């Protein structure tokens, strides 16, 4: 092998993108990088979905089965036995419309908070914007959510609930729900890299969270003077309005405003926190 005759580099350097590596600045979001790695983002989502239903007999049916079975149990115990008031709507539909956003959120948090840790081998061996991992974990659940949402159609036909113009709010509510979930998961997943306690606390936290969110009941049950406190939980506003959009009842505009502002705040905080922690991920994970 003659090393002297090696051809020179194919293109002049000026044509190639320059990468500068320096000690990082957490307040700078690297948007071009996020865009450049979009294909990886899709593949991470694709992998999550693919792997979850590998070697299962029912596969994607579980996406509908999970909220449907919960609806059944809730209906029997809360609706029939405990007679939880349902504001004049069919109780099963009240529960299912609450469970849709809730299942999405709780599943996303459950898997998403551990996502960085379970992908430790990627983080220590290849570069890509780390934020893609928790965000893709949410993205994968969004696909499940969409499928479970379709199951509403036969349910609404069965209970004879007609769609109203309120449905127009649905895209915004889904966006808000996703955004809130991303904020929480980005924050928790980064914290989990440093403190594995997060993984332990989450199942408990999610369980408690279910009771302070209007899933099995309507927020009308909450006394008026405590509603401001109740709606500090951004999920309460999202779930209640999600239900209103589908069942055609009145929106809780104040609650929605609360949820939007708090979501925005959490998201900005989470993104900053993540960027700050990100620098040490590969060293401490």
């Amino acid at each position: 092998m003659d090393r002297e005759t090696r051809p020179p580099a194919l293109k002049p350097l000026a044509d190639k993108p320059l990468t500068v590596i320096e000690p990082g600045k957490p307040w700078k979001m690297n948007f071009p990088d996020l865009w450049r790695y979009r294909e990886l983002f899709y593949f991470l989502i694709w992998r999550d979905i693919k792997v979850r239903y590998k070697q299962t007999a029912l596969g994607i049916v579980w996406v509908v089965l999970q909220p449907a079975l919960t609806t059944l149990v809730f209906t029997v115990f809360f609706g029939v036995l405990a007679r939880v008031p349902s504001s004049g709507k069919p109780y099963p539909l009240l529960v299912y419309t609450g469970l849709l956003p809730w299942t999405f959120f709780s599943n996303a948090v459950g898997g998403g908070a551990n996502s960085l840790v379970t992908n430790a081998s990627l983080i220590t061996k290849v570069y890509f914007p780390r934020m893609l991992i928790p965000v893709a974990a949410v993205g994968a659940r969004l696909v499940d959510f969409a499928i479970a949402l379709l199951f509403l159609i036969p349910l609404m036909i069965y209970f004879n609930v007609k769609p109203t113009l309120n449905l127009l709010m649905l895209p915004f509510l889904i966006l808000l729900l996703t955004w809130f979930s991303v904020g929480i998961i980005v924050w928790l997943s980064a914290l989990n890299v440093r403190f594995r306690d997060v993984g332990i606390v989450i199942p408990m936290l999610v369980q408690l969270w279910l009771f302070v969110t209007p899933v099995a009941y309507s927020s009308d049950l909450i006394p008026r003077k405590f509603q401001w406190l109740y709606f500090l939980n951004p999920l309460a506003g999202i779930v209640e309005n999600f239900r209103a959009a589908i069942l055609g009842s009145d929106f809780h505009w104040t609650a929605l405003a609360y949820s939007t502002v708090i979501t925005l705040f959490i998201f900005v905080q989470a993104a900053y926190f993540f960027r700050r922690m990100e620098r040490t991920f590969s060293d401490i994970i």
Partner: protein
Amino acid sequence: MQPIISVENVAKRYTLGKTSARTDTLRESLVDFARAPLAMIRNRRSSSTETLWALKDVTLKVAPGEVVGLIGRNGAGKSTLLKILSRITEPTTGRVELYGRVGSLLEVGTGFHPELTGRENIFLNGVILGMSHRDIRKKFDEIIAFAEIERFIDTPVKRYSSGMYVRLAFAVAAHLEPEILVVDEVLAVGDLAFQNKCLGKMEDASLGGRTVLFVSHNMPAITRLCSRALLLESGRVVMDGATNDVISTYLERSFSAGHSREWVDQSQAPGTEELKLMAVSVMRQDGSVVSTATVAEPVLVKLVYVTTQPSLKFRCAVVFNTQGTCAFATVEPTETLHDKPGRYTSIVKVPCDLLAEGEYMINVSIFTSRGIKQHYVQLQNVVALHVYDPMTGDSARGDYAERLAGVVSPRLEWTSEYEGPA
């Protein structure tokens, strides 16, 4: 020429001890959790507790198309440097500028998922390594052919044998085409034939004008691929130069064995009352001391010793070790009588076309085995020799360019003839 990689004063500090330790028990976790906010603030303030500088003041420039080997002992900072260049970890201080895409191969099979099939993993792994979906589809057939797993392409990789798994993983990585390729010790996978194939692929990459940074403990591979090498020691670049020189220095430093060893003070010299070893050296035919030799030249090992008593009968032995085993041992054919006390020299000539490419550590001993075996001198790793093949075609390998296995590489005669129709 403008460098494609330019590293300026890069340093990397790791904090040791409690802060980086994993918390394993719930109790510990709760204590940590309670302290969490405080601890995080404290860490930022006083990081002097216990720190390790994995890299310090590393400055280096690499021209486009250069293939640079990084060598050094474990913990010298080679992998940390690669991790910084591939943006996996951030430098504590300093700055790096890179032109073009960087492909890093710090491990084979990064991101492989056991539940997914070979086909699915090729796409997943390819995208993780930075290839586009389109590129992967274009090279798909080439990849499975390289990995030799055509039949199992739709089987989940958890059912693969470890060999198949590794071959597939390397095949994907080998088809990466970035401007800068950063490779850690990943060539030591698979069987010998597959290793050769990988090495060949690396050679193609370097011949294709790609810039490659290559970490390996496989010195023949470094010699083969790299024209330039860097020696790292405790996080610093201690030498930067032609590969053969750097490898020799590395051997000298890491085994504290160089091309020669001399004991000036006779009382400190190894040996017994009657006999002291004064010097050992590796030389060329012309008597010049060398640490590097080509496979095509003879090498002399010279032992200098002093006897203090008359009528000593003994013989000298020299052992060449390489790749963790003994390549060969050679002894003086007879025990000779050393009548007069004084200074003696024994030289053994290792002919050309015997040593294989690689590093040899040389042991020497002087002993008698008449009656009870008695060692006067018995020393391990006294001197080292780095042997390489200049690839001129005039060696045991002829024009065969790939790796030749074995601890020696004798030049043997081959004949073949036509015996008639089959």
